[in-house]
């Protein structure tokens, strides 16, 4: 019953997880297919670009959330971190006229600082992640309110280079989406191939066993929250670049969408299993639903209900799959 065990028995789990990604891809293709059949313009260049634009930020945040959820944690503060980072970056760009290239590191730094705060409260203060990040959700939003007040950063205040970064693309793929996908791949490799990444799975599967096996739990937890914060911070920069308008409410309530994307993407909310690929597909699926509704002329009021139903369906499916897998393994075990 240790983590080593989960490595050896992972063929089954791998299969299940791959099925999950496959299932998401099937759902995506079906949805896009139906929508396109009803309105061919849904697959036009412009429309696909728009979709990728819209998915970029959620994708990035879902990536960070995956890392945290893997350790049985949660980060509810991502929306506020995004807001803070977007505002700080936006005002730094408009006030100091600093070069656009500094925007990304600045946003990352703001986010990483918030993530460090979360990690410290959780690790050193022994505060449950739900409570800690709920608290920082309020506190950081309050800080944004203080900083921004009633002001708003308009597109005309931002350097053109920054806005071009927000709206430009290479070969039809927006820069923003490319950044998100690169990050997603990097985090995926980190989780799958590196010791520190595997440790996060171990911590989520069985914290006690992981500790006994010598995993530095505290350091790994800090890594997870700093990473989640930093990606939310980067998300803030992308947000500012894409919309050009930043006010105190940027990213408000976004945490729900991100948690939904992660859960739909097959990352188990009690830790230990899931991939960034799944979470990315989850984010993409939610964005496609969001964009398909107006095209399909479905009342936009249904959107939130659909998201909720998807979350319930996804966790119920996870449960079913894991129960079956466990039963199958037990049966296999009894034959030996």
């Amino acid at each position: 019953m240790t983590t080593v065990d989960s490595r050896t028995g992972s063929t089954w789990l791998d299969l299940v997880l791959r099925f999950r990604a496959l299932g998401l891809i099937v759902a995506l293709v079906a949805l896009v297919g139906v929508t396109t059949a009803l309105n061919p313009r849904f697959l036009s260049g412009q429309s696909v670009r728009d979709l990728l634009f819209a998915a970029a930020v959620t994708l990035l945040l879902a990536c960070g959330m995956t890392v945290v959820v893997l350790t049985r944690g949660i980060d509810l503060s991502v929306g506020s971190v995004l807001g803070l980072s977007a505002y700080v970056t936006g005002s730094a760009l408009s006030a100091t006229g600093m070069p656009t290239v500094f925007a990304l590191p600045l946003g990352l730094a703001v986010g990483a600082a918030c993530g460090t705060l979360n990690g410290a409260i959780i690790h050193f203060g022994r505060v449950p992640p739900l409570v800690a990040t709920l608290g920082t959700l309020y506190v950081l939003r309050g800080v944004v309110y203080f900083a921004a007040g009633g002001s708003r950063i308009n597109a005309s205040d931002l350097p053109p280079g920054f806005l071009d970064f927000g709206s430009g693309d290479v070969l039809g793929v927006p820069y923003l989406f490319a950044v998100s996908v690169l990050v997603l791949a990097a985090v995926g490799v980190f989780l799958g191939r590196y010791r520190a990444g595997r440790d996060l799975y171990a911590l989520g599967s069985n914290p006690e066993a992981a500790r006994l096996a010598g995993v530095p739990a505290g350091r790994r937890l800090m890594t997870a929250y700093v990473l989640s914060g930093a990606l939310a911070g980067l998300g803030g920069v992308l947000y500012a670049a894409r919309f050009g308008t930043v006010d105190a409410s940027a990213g408000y309530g976004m945490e729900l969408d991100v948690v939904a994307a992660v859960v739909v993407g097959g990352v188990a909310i009690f830790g230990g299993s899931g991939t960034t690929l799944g979470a990315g597909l989850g984010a993409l699926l939610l964005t496609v639903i969001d964009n398909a509704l107006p095209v399909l002329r479905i009342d936009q009021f249904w959107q939130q209900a659909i998201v909720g139903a998807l979350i319930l369906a996804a966790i119920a499916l996870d449960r079913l799959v894991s129960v079956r897998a466990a039963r199958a393994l037990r049966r296999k075990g009894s034959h030996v």
Partner: protein
Amino acid sequence: MKGSKPMNRRRLTLLTTPVLAAAMLAACGGTTQGEDDGGGPAGGASADPNADFETGLTYAMLPKSVNNPYFEASSAGAEAAVNALGGEFEYTGPSDASASSQVSYIDTLSQQATDVLLLSANDPNALCSSLEQARAGGTVVVTFDSDVDPACRDLFVSQVDSAEVGLALLEMAAEQIDATGEIAILSATANATNQNAWIDVMEAELESNTSYADMELVDVVYGDDEDEKSFSETQGLLQAHPDLKAIISPTTVGIAAAARYLSGSEYKGQVALTGLGTPNQMREFVQDGTVTEFALWDPTALGELAAYTGAAAASGIITGAEGEVFTAGDLGEYTVGADGVVTLGPPTRFNADNIDDFDF
């Protein structure tokens, strides 16, 4: 577990019986919709048009939410007016645009016996009982920008006449597309009082006015006054209607988001965009050719007029009856219309020629 099931059921029955009984009892002869049970305050004071503005009054401005540049501008106008009138001014409100948070603020202000409350309401009805209490305590309630039920306030300062805005919006759109082709509207929320009134005017005019015979309103979508949502709704509109010629967005958030989307898309210059926006937000898009002309009233002047209206009512110069006249400082003379509505004036149009003259 097996033995527990009948018990569950029994407990459920136990729990629901009284409730159901009450429901059934009530079903015969209950209170249903449409039964008017009266109520509401009645006026009765008389106006003295020659009275002077009282000094030393306390004014509080309660916007839909703080952290909103539009209301910041209104508050600047109101503060200037209050300073000129020799009163005390406070700008306060919730950070979320919800009616329930506004109620708490109204309760607080009425305890502090504020003389004049300048309010932009998040819900036309939810604030009424609190407003009634405030008025019973002697507070003059003037709504601006967004009204409540006329029975719950003294006066409403309207930014513009609904008909005038609707007509101006349609006229600008028609000028930009030679009065031919499909148009769509990107509005705020589906129950936004102002926007719906303007949309009604536009729809009626499209039907009745022959010079708009070749224009067709194909869709109305709602961006909920959220930047991101308005942005993606614009996107959805253009996908759903390939032949769309113009978008009218009668909300500052909507037009800015739509302009931002258009300027970065292949539709730039192909699809006309007009509506209500602030010059500071739209300047860039007028300069890059995405937008030709849009309109808005001056929110600063709106706040100023609201403050003068409140002062006039608190000083007994007006009571809110139709036809009463008062002078609002530099803004000039205003007449109270039907239902206690004071109208600021026609909207100002902004285009490449004049946009740099404005800063709000």
